[in-house]
């Protein structure tokens, strides 16, 4: 996909330190960071494409593939783990028919496992489209997802 990123670049000076904010803008605009966007960004900042790729793959916040309409994150941090986070994840995987790190074929959902949102008091936690759902049970988690459908 050949996106025109000139609008984004026009807000930056072209310095190397701007890489992450640019990638965040790209992801906001496109939904993920396509290879062609990395190439254009590398050219704009005059750094190797591999350096951009290295940063994109380092940070969990960047996606290399198109994401679903709804982003579902299930916490597997320590607190969530001891309070059954694993069962939540399994229930969500079963409900959506995808595994963590995947996106459903209809691009409705993307699922990720995350290690701690800092909402340990509410463990186990699931975050859907930025909204925290605390004290989850497998049944409650499925109902949250069904409400979206």
């Amino acid at each position, binding site marked *: 996909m050949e996106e025109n990123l000139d609008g984004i670049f026009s807000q930056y000076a072209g310095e190397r330190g701007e890489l992450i904010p640019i990638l965040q803008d790209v992801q906001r605009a496109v939904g993920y960071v396509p*290879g062609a966007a*990395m*190439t254009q960004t590398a050219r704009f900042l*005059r*750094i*190797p*494409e*591999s*350096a*951009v*790729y*290295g940063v994109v*793959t*380092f*940070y*969990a916040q960047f996606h290399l593939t198109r994401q679903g309409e709804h982003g579902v994150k299930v916490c597997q941090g320590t607190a969530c783990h001891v309070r059954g986070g694993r069962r939540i994840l399994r229930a969500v995987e079963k409900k959506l028919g995808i595994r963590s790190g995947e996106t459903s074929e209809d691009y409705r959902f993307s699922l990720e496992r995350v290690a701690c949102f800092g909402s340990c008091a509410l463990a186990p936690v699931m975050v859907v489209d930025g909204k925290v759902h605390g004290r989850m049970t497998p049944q409650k988690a499925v109902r949250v997802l069904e409400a979206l459908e």
Partner: protein
Amino acid sequence: MAQITLTIDAVGATVPEGTSVLEAALSAGIYIPTLCYDKDLEPYGACRICIVEIEGMDGLPTSCTTRAADGMVVRTDTERVNRVRRTICEMLIADHPADCLTCPANQSCELQQVASHLGIMQQRLEPLEREHVLDESNPFFKLDLSTCILCARCVRACNELRGVGAIELVGRGYECHVGTFLDGPMVESVCESCGECVDRCPTGALSAKAERLPPTREVKTTCVYCGCGCGLVLGVRGNRIVRVRGEAAHPVNRGSLCVKGRFGLDFVGSADRLTAPLIRRDGELQEAGWEEALELVAGRLSEIKAEHGPDALAGLSSAKCTNEENYLFQKFVRAALGTNNVDHCARLCHASTVVGLARAFGSGAMTNSLGEIEHADCILVTGSNTTEAHPIIALRIIAAVERHGARLIVADPRRIDLVRFADLHLRQRSGTDVALFNAMMNVILGEGLADEKFIASRTEGFEQFRRALEECTPEWAEPITGVPAGEIRAAARTYAGAERASIIYSMGITQHTTGTDNVLSLANLAMLTGNVGRPSTGVNPLRGQNNVQGACDLGALPDVYPGYQKVDDAGVRRSFEQAWGVPLPAEPGLTVVEMTNAAAEGLLKGLYVMGENPMLSDPNVNHVREALEKLDFLCVQDIFLTETARLADVVLPGVSFAEKDGTFTNTERRVQRVRAAVDSPGEARQDWAIICEVASRLGYPMHYDHPSQIMDEMASVTPIYGGMSFERVDEVGPQWPCPDAEHPGTVYLHEGEFKRGRGKFHPVRFREAAELPDEEYPFLLTTGRCLYHFHTGTLSRRSAGLEELSPPAPFEIHPEDAAAEGISEGQIVQITSRRGTVRARAVLTERSRPGMIFMPFHFREAAANLLTNDALDPVAKIPEYKVCAVRLKKAHESSPGC
């Protein structure tokens, strides 16, 4: 720099301020184990193995990233330090296969060394299981992630030393690995296959494919490819070169090499090497004995000389051969044949430099040295695709920009690789360099940026020159050059504003009918701003061939004896007559293209070619073929049956650089040793010995026991080489002028005074190229080199790996032009000029300017020089390889061809 003293394990170490604790320890002879340290790379602190205890400091700092301080007390081998080191090392080993015996790095592996130093005898931690990822896509090396320890030396070398950035640490945590952009195959990345990563890898993760068996001995020599003059260490096993590495302490390459030098020496052991003399019988070249062949050569040359006079003979010497051989060859032509008709391919690359810089400064060579480039504030690179044609010199330019903050101006019609690092890219229309530089100088004068003190005290001819610039405003130049006036102004200010500005140029400047004018313009620019005669400044032509500088220095030119002493100077001539014991001709001889023309007209009857291939290298090759076929006698001395040798009456097998002793002079005037590493194949003979045989049979006895004797003789008649001898150049070669044995050599020229006294400004007016695109031939063709091949490909094309990386017969065209012509990527296109036609494979790229196509001249399948124009610069007689007009037509055939 201030010195500091610290104590390391009870040993006192005194080091310059700023030294790391690790380097201080190494300098005191104390080993600290480490896996990510590399003396040529920035400290990284990743492996954590080099930790030490330092009194008064908490924790265990990594010695590579900790600066030594005065009075510091360091302990490198305490139980506490070693316990942590062992744990780190054990974790690395847990994620590392334990198959050392079959690993390519066995015995050279630094992980092995560190584990052994720490006394690790067993795999204590449970090994991790991982998918085995192996990238074998590159023909020369492979990447095996299972043995990678993530020290990032490869990644850092690729970025910091080479400026390429093909690889990076990709992913995070357990997933972290060395990978390319999008984790594609190495060969499809921007990798330049230089092998720097392989060289730096401490384990077997990156290993050369060819190196299955280690060498049994190593021989230091000088690379035979380009004018950089890199130090090579050939690893030899029996009679075979099995490994090549860069000489770490070498002043030019500091251990680095390009893909050709490191991996492209297959030609030495090629089965195609000539192993016996060949004589043409019944129209075919057939093997013959030396005696018969030499008798025939001497006999035919004598006959022609007797019948038509000495000037019916000519010799082409070789920029690939040694200084000793070039000296001997021109002596043979002058003293034994009796003519000044001796020239070589320098005519085709830098004749305009030799003439232009001699007129302006008094010496036609690079004014400054390669090591100085890094410390220039501003570098103007013009007509040099440095990364491809002089890869190791490009590293200096990149380092100047990336490490030292130099401003880089690239003035080149093509968007060459260096543009990635440039502040300004002036994309002039080919052949309009004079207009561009005149306009820059107009700005410098107009804005008061000239160095008036330098002009007044060091130069002459300024007034006339200044008047000639009056009309050359940036607005005047814009429509001529296609460069916006604003950019011309910016470039002028950047260049003139620098304290130390260096000009680097090559054949994009010289190979024009205005070549001499182009060179004079650059000389004017440097003098106008006082950028000559000081470190990191100057006008620096990058010479193409490994020894083109030496071949010129030693007189393989029709108008000068060794040391640029004029043949038409009676005093000089008398001294050479005395030295060589024969009367010598007084008239300058014919240049390369003039020889071709004289042969075509039937005036030149006999030609002796040593190690040159005019059938691919000269312009208008169809004309060259006609001329060579018309000769009464053609003798070719070479290591392969080149396109030219195929036309010869007699072919004499010489030896390659790896089989001979001698010296090459690199582009920075450095005279360096070449050493025999292997035996020559079959009955091939030393080139100098062949020349001696032929000369002696012509009644001019020549006898030497060893090339060092030739060196001694040439030093005695060549003042700039006066202090050279094999002994002197043995370790580090000095740079000429080096007039006597005590002289240290000359790093940069024209300090205090120009060679000719005062530097001379020349008014230079813009002239168009000899042939420009028109309705019939609408595209401009320019020619040059690519990274993976050299010159006519005689050497580089014998490497299967280089062939794989650079498929034959490409031409580059801008995507817009391609769309307009209906040409798609990879399509075979017929390219026609007024002189010939070839079929080449289209490569669509924005490197080319719209309206312009580019072809490398390495490929006989689509010889660019069938198309090029043999119009000459009136002074230097260099042909216009860089500009001619062509038309394109989609070909019916599916393969390239002529």
